[in-house]
């Protein structure tokens, strides 16, 4: 008689993760608020909000509803010009999230492409691209931002250009080193010895192995772009009235932080929460794209 003690550990784990209800996954709890915030901001004009640029000098610097003197007419309070802060926050989020996404893409697309080309071609092309990355990284971000903005003026387009210019080397550097190490991995040699062509290995084996990195870098890139944009706005070099962004609201609340802390607090909280959520999503996505982490 033979007794089988074999419990198939990995199968059990796989089964468990498959049976897990969708609403119990971390991805859901991270992406749901992200999507909610984004949709609210995108469809701001459809919401019953007052115009964020509507000045009402009879009710300036009102506190939020839960404080003495606050009311539900302006649930988050008003600015020193009587603008509704909730409305400002939602309309401002629209710009900030847009710049975060597009700014990330502006840096990610050329960065990833150059990184790939450098990593796979090696030789002179790699040397040139690698030196370019070093050169770009050696320029202080603020200097680049000031130079571009001083010569081209403030506008969303200029901010996006600054973002693309300053963030592409981060993408390029990581993707280049990843591509360099992937092409030397033993499984590439093993596939070549099995008669698989170089192109096929690149497309079917190396790119999928890079995909996780790209997704993670991109999500982290959104967070970074939002932070950079807010910093530019805060310095008064980015979005300015009548334009709105979380960074510009933060800047306008700065002078009254002693008396009306909430003006600066709301955009500050939104920036932190949004960036945190995006970064958490990035972390969570790593495990989705690498089967080695999938069962943890």
């Amino acid at each position, binding site marked *: 008689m033979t007794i089988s003690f074999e419990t198939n550990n*990995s199968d059990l784990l796989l089964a468990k993760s498959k049976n897990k209800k969708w609403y119990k996954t971390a991805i859901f709890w991270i992406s749901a608020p992200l999507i909610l915030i984004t949709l609210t901001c995108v469809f701001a004009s459809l919401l019953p909000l007052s115009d964020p640029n509507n000045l009402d000098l009879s009710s300036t610097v009102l506190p939020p509803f839960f404080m003495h003197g606050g009311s539900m007419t302006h649930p988050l309070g008003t600015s020193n010009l009587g603008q509704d802060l909730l409305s400002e926050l939602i309309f401002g989020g629209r710009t900030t999230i847009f710049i975060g996404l597009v700014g990330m893409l502006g840096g990610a697309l050329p960065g990833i492409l150059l990184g790939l080309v450098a990593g796979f071609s090696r030789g002179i092309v790699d040397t040139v691209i690698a030196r370019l990355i070093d050169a770009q990284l050696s320029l202080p971000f603020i200097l680049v931002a000031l130079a571009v903005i001083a010569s081209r003026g403030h506008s969303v387009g200029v901010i996006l250009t600054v973002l693309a210019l300053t963030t592409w080397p981060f993408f390029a550097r990581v993707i280049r080193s990843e591509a360099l190490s992937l092409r030397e991995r033993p*499984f590439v040699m093993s596939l070549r*010895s*099995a*008669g*698989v*062509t170089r192109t096929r290995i690149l497309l*079917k084996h190396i790119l999928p*192995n890079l995909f996780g990195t790209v997704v993670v870098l991109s999500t982290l890139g959104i967070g970074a772009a939002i932070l950079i944009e807010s910093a530019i706005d805060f310095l008064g070099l980015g979005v300015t009235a009548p334009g709105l962004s979380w960074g510009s609201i933060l800047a306008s609340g700065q002078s009254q932080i002693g008396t009306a802390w909430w003006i600066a607090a709301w955009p500050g909280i939104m920036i932190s929460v949004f960036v945190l959520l995006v970064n958490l999503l990035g972390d969570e996505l790593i495990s989705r794209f690498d089967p080695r982490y999938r069962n943890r």
Partner: protein
Amino acid sequence: MSLLEIKGLTVDAATSTGQQRIIDDIHLSIGKGEIIGIVGESGSGKTTLARALVGLLDKNLRVSAGECSFDDEVIISDKVDLANTIRGKKIGMVFQDAGRSLNPLMKVKAQIKEVLRVNRPEITKEDIKAVMHEILQRMEIDDPDRVLNSFPHQLSGGQRQRVAIAIAIVTSPSLVIADECTTALDVTTQAEVVHLLRELVRDGKTSLLFITHDLLLASELCDRVMVMYASEAVEIGPVSDVLEMPNHPYTKALIASVPSWDVTGPLKGIPGSAPKIGLENVGCNFADRCSYSEPGCFAENVSWTSTSQISGFRCRIPLRKLSSDDIQN
């Protein structure tokens, strides 16, 4: 008739310090169904030799002389590189670290399937499943279904190496090159893998080139062994001849340095270390460390002596006294 014939294969490396000879004038023929072992210490050129055979040398290495023919057709020489026509189809390769020689993102199923699709397009989709099952069963894997549906990291080291071997032989190649494929495994798993490799060549159609630094393992598995030292072959012959009556002092020293049950006392190492291989080396590469060397060994290059079709050595003063008719050429 031999399956693979290596004639004077030489590989040079372009380094920052100039040309270096990585493989020097190797002669070897592998017959159908034969198991050849290549034994040598790290850096002796074993792996480079294997890679040269399948045309997968690193960019800075190139075949500078000699040739290698497969089924009487020259596939590798200083001018020819037709290895891509036989890679995967007629030659399969197994590497040292099976865990890393499988794509971590793909299930075993997909990886075997890919090699089949690339090299055996005539096999239909329906048959592929049967072929995969059969190959894993031949690899003595108990539950092929689970292994096929697993990612490499979900398998044990031994299972991974079996899968790697399965991928190498699923296209029924006539030669399998196993490059240190047992080195990363523990002794019991090693024994199992060696057993599998032996089973593999039992049909007499498949030949095996078994590269290892483990002399004992080679002697257990192989019909003939080639001992390599500092980019050269120093001795080739049937396992029993080479182990019992080595011609080359290096072989003798290598055998003496293998630990054994019945020999007590300290282990005999080989004094000194392997020489830096350059083009301008004169004399026998082993002369510095050899306990038999004479002034002549340092002065002139040593040529290859064939004692028969299947054996030979590279030494001026072979340990076995040879009569003149023993020596061919």
